């Protein structure tokens, strides 16, 4: 009865398991691997920021203001130089990764849950539910994100929590639109009818028949919205509406460096380049995940 060991001969006949095949596809995809490695590195840097940062990101030193980075003739004391208050730029970049990643992940998670629930419900049930959700999507699309964020910050004051919440509750529109369309498409497939004829309940249908088949679209939207949230945070911080100084944030660093941009362009270029690499890595990973999870690419 309890004999669960698999005969090796039988294993050979059955061939590789789905898990083994998936692993092969994941590690064979270049874009996915590049994006994932970069993103894992950034995450590790953010997690171990206190151990990695050479200096305190808040420590000011007015005698050591705007030291150039090493590659522009600076010293190894400050590898990426210092800003206009003499704070170590590398340390601020390392701590800034925490803010960007946190905003991207939490905002995408909140909006993902809201948007997916609305979109799947609208697509599956149709009728009145669909009419209500479509109306809400249109209302949301008619609101400019930056203006709403501006108003909320004006009332509540700017802070990391406020920025995350504002973005989380504003960026669900694309989730809802994409999930609604995908669900409508998938629910007409005969395997959904077959599962219903077998006796599957509605929650089971949604979770095991519909969700897995719209998951690859969801992954793409998650990565897009994560990148979107990170860029919006940078934009809001640049406008002075997002993360408040002296918290290190990449958008804020660009903003603080813009006055010196003509004389010390690296003040803007370094955080800009890091932002660019992170968004690129997230998008590469999203594309890759869609590729390896699509059923068409199994062979």
């Amino acid at each position, binding site marked *: 009865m309890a004999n669960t060991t698999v005969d090796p001969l039988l294993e050979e006949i059955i061939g590789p398991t789905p898990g083994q095949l998936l692993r092969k596809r994941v590690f064979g995809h270049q874009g996915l691997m590049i994006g994932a490695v970069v993103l894992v590195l950034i995450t590790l840097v953010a997690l171990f920021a206190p151990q990695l940062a050479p200096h305190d990101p808040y420590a000011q030193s007015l005698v050591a203001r705007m030291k150039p980075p090493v590659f522009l003739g600076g010293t190894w004391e400050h590898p990426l130089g210092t800003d206009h208050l003499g704070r170590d730029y590398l340390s601020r970049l390392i701590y800034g990764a925490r803010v960007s990643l946190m905003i991207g992940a939490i905002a995408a998670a909140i909006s993902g849950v809201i948007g997916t629930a609305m979109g799947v419900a609208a697509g599956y049930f149709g009728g009145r539910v669909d009419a209500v959700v479509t109306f809400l999507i249109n209302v949301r699309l008619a609101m400019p994100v930056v203006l709403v964020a501006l108003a909320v910050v004006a009332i509540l004051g700017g802070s990391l929590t406020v920025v995350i919440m504002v973005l989380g509750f504003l960026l669900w529109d694309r989730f809802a639109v994409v999930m609604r369309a995908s669900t409508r498409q998938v629910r007409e497939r005969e395997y959904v009818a077959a599962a219903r004829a077998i*006796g599957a309940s509605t929650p089971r249908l949604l979770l095991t028949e519909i969700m897995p088949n719209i998951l690859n679209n969801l992954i793409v939207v998650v990565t897009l919205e994560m990148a979107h949230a990170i860029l919006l945070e940078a934009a809001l911080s640049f406008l002075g509406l997002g993360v408040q100084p002296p918290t290190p944030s990449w958008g804020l660093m660009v903003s603080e460096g813009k006055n010196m941009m003509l004389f010390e362009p690296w003040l803007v270029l370094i955080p800009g380049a890091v932002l660019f690499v992170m968004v690129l890595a997230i998008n590469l990973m999203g594309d890759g995940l869609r590729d390896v999870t699509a059923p068409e690419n199994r062979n």
Partner: protein
Amino acid sequence: MLDAAKTPPALELRNITKTYTVKQGLIGKRRPLTAVRDVSLKLEKGEVLGLVGESGCGKSTLAKILLGLEPPTSGEVLVDGQALGVQDRLALARRIQPIFQDPYSSLNPRKSIADIVSLPLRIHGIGDAASQQKAVRDMLDVVGLPPRVMNTFPSQMSGGQRQRVAIARALIMKPEIVICDEPTSALDVSVQSQILNLLGDLRAEFGLTYLFISHNLAVVEHLATRVAVMYLGRIVEDVSSDDLFDASAHPYTQALLQSVLTPEPGLGVPDTQLGMAYPNPIDPPSGCGFHPRCRHATNLCSAQAPRPVPHRDGHVECHLHDPETAMFGTD
């Protein structure tokens, strides 16, 4: 009186009507579309009933109603003498299982073959993981698939293999009735006969009752013991298979039989004399739905709908065969 003593038919439809509401355009008004019109049908145990008709005649709607996927607008479905509405959905699922038309759409592309075939067992909570696994392997063997396909995905299989998987999924619960909705029309001709033979073998092995929906008369002839011909939501003729192919009564059935291509190349495409296209179901013709295309049509046909008349061991709906109205019919 004698009928009551007999075992009830495996499946019985009583006066089933299904009406959809169709909205035409943005400001168009809502109009009813009657896909199935007052259909009564009996399916005895062990029978293979072929349901034939053109696209849009209501065959698939009827299948959906039988599977409990759509409620009928009126009328009732009886399974073993019990009304479908009062039966538990799970209990119903144990008795009636579908095989769908398109095996490329009827298998979840995200699930392995083992997951797909074992889904009914898992939903109904039959056995533990190991015994389910064994049941899947046995069932795959019955439909002629090797155990190594268990870990593959539908995208790695051919159409014929996929349809075998769909058959395995339908039969793993040992249902009494299988509704086959055009199970071979999406397959290559060479594979069609394999699947048909498999269905025939399985019927004998498990004592199944089939409702076999098709627009292909050759396929129906191969498998069916009885044939029901559907036109515009009505069953116009319902006879045993032998009678249908030897002595069909309804002009529409005759036209369908003529439309079957012969293997002889010199004969060309047969002339069915059906002429004009299938009528719009939103705006059906008056009287007998078939009269605009019927070569025997008379004034009576456009004025009054024919009633079902007993014919051989079944029935036919045509004024030509109704003793009360046949005298008006002229060619």
